[in-house]
């Protein structure tokens, strides 16, 4: 009955001045909204990156130049000048734990046709790339092993490249395009992988050419990376150490990295996590400002109700009773703000989801409610204490 009467009295007092209560709550609503949505953005982004990675093949192990990935620091010591050669390709062929070995020479390149130009990422590689990365042609076909040996001037286009140049991907296959000042025949267009953005590569803007063809044209025999695939997730570590043993014979420890997709994923995600934390922290400031708003209005409320406090004290209310009465009000204000903020975040997330993946998880919901009630208590306790400490006789005399 006591608690019920506290809540009833608090709701009554708040509803007497609805506009004031609403404006006070608004600070908390905006704070919770921004924190919950920013967390949702962060989680959505993480999930999005993970999905992108998974769609590009599982259990992949990358051999990259330099000390690219470092779990504790993130990206470091990126050595773009370093590259691998055919000797490395041949020695990695001895790796037993991998079903595939894909050498990649990667460079930015312009594709020209029908008077149009598209800047793309050129992948000079083998036919195994398509299997390892789950790349499926929607039109035409992919190249084969014999095309590599023949140094055939053929190209498989990413979906977006084909679409941009030919307008319709149906028109691309069989057409001629100019790449690196040579004429190539388009033999296939790959299924769209979507994605890109946020610093992640857009695989729909990639083009694939047999590596020997490109080596022949550029007069180069360097690889920028190798892609291997473990038979199962549990084999990844063994595969990595096998690769390491081979490459360490020729290079220093710092010259190359052997990373699995999970590691790459974690590194990218850790960067976004830090970024997200900074954003959430900024959002949290608005929660604090909201809390100060509550404190301010509670002081006004104590002042307005001095006489009521006096009456209650005269009738036997303890300091604690008065404290709880005002604290209940501030907690109701802030929790109400928290709940409204949550509902609004949910509704907004439904709209945002059309353009961007956002995930509101249970933890964010619990956090929002916990933090908003904490703010109610923290910022409510000072005015409530002031009310509780009023001398009954001075309060009752107050006009």
């Amino acid at each position, binding site marked *: 009955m006591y608690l019920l009467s506290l809540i009833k009295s608090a709701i009554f*007092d708040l509803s007497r001045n609805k506009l004031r209560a609403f404006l006070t709550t608004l600070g908390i609503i905006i704070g919770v909204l921004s924190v919950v949505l920013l967390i949702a953005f962060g989680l959505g982004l993480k999930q999005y990156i993970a999905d992108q990675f998974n769609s590009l093949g599982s259990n992949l192990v990358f051999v990259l130049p330099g000390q690219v990935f470092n779990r504790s620091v993130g990206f470091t010591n990126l050595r773009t000048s370093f590259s691998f050669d055919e000797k490395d390709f041949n020695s990695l062929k001895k790796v037993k734990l991998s079903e595939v070995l894909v050498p990649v020479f990667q460079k930015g390149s312009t594709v020209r046709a029908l008077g149009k130009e598209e800047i793309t990422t050129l992948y000079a590689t083998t036919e195994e790339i398509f299997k390892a990365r789950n790349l499926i042609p929607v039109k035409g076909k992919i190249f084969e092993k014999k095309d590599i040996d023949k140094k055939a001037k053929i190209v498989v286009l990413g979906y977006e490249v084909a679409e941009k140049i030919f307008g319709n991907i149906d028109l691309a296959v069989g057409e001629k395009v100019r790449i690196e000042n040579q004429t190539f025949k388009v033999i296939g267009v790959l299924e769209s992988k979507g994605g890109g953005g946020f610093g992640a590569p857009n695989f729909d803007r990639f083009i694939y050419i047999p590596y020997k063809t490109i080596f022949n044209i550029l007069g180069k025999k360097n690889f920028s990376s190798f892609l291997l695939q473990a038979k199962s997730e549990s084999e990844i570590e063994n595969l990595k150490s096998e690769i390491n043993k081979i490459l360490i014979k020729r290079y220093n420890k710092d010259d190359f990295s052997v990373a699995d997709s999970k590691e790459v994923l974690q590194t990218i995600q850790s960067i976004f996590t830090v970024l997200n934390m900074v954003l959430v922290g900024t959002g949290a400031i608005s929660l604090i400002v909201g809390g100060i708003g509550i404190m301010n209005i509670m002081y006004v409320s104590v002042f307005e109700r001095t*006489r009521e406090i*006096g009456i209650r004290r*005269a*009738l*036997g209310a*303890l*300091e604690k009773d008065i404290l709880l009465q005002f604290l209940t009000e501030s907690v109701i204000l802030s929790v109400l703000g928290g709940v409204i903020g949550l509902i609004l975040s949910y509704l907004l997330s439904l709209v945002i989801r059309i353009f961007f993946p956002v995930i509101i998880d249970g933890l964010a919901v619990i956090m929002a409610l916990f933090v908003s009630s904490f703010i109610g208590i923290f910022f409510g306790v000072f005015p409530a204490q002031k009310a509780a400490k009023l001398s*009954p006789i001075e309060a*009752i005399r107050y006009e």
Partner: protein
Amino acid sequence: MIKLVKVCKKYHIDDGVDFIALKDVSLEIKKNEYTAIIGPSGSGKSTLMHIIGLLDKPTKGKVFINEKEVSQMNDNQISKLRNKFIGFIFQQFNLINKLTVLENVLLPVLYCREKLSFNPEKRALELIKRFNIDGKENSYPNKLSGGQQQRVAIARALVMDPPIILTDEPTGNLDSKNGEIVLSLLEKLNKEEKRTVIIVTHDLEIAKRTKRIIKIKDGQIV
């Protein structure tokens, strides 16, 4: 029942200037007494009432309620004593306008943490009926006449069944008819219900109706 021994009350006004409201006041009010404390405004009678009513603490001296010294008690103990032992009736009624009549009457029950020997709701409704305000249980005080409001206040003062009724100018805001109703009620509370009733007033006519008059002037009993 109530005993004051050499009670002084000083107020700090400002710049070290003190106002002495009560000077060495000693008095004893026994059980079942019907007493008036009378004096002109500024005489210290309100301060005296606040000290008797445990709303204020003396600067010096001792206050005993049922032989227990109040100055030794902490705020919680004093608040509980106020809740159980003293029923207040104020000149301004001091009802809480956002609470209904019934809720106002039940307010002291809210702050009593002990198990009551009676059903408070039933008792409140009985009191409301007794004071002819039945039908108004769910009305708000500002919708009632002054006389009705004061009767709600009396019901509230009685809901905890306190042995002491302390009133401050209880008829001050009422017309003579309603004033008479209140005064005869107070008389009944003393005579029939054997409660100790103390009326603080400046009106000699009212004081004359009690059994004992304590006159106060310039903070001293005369």
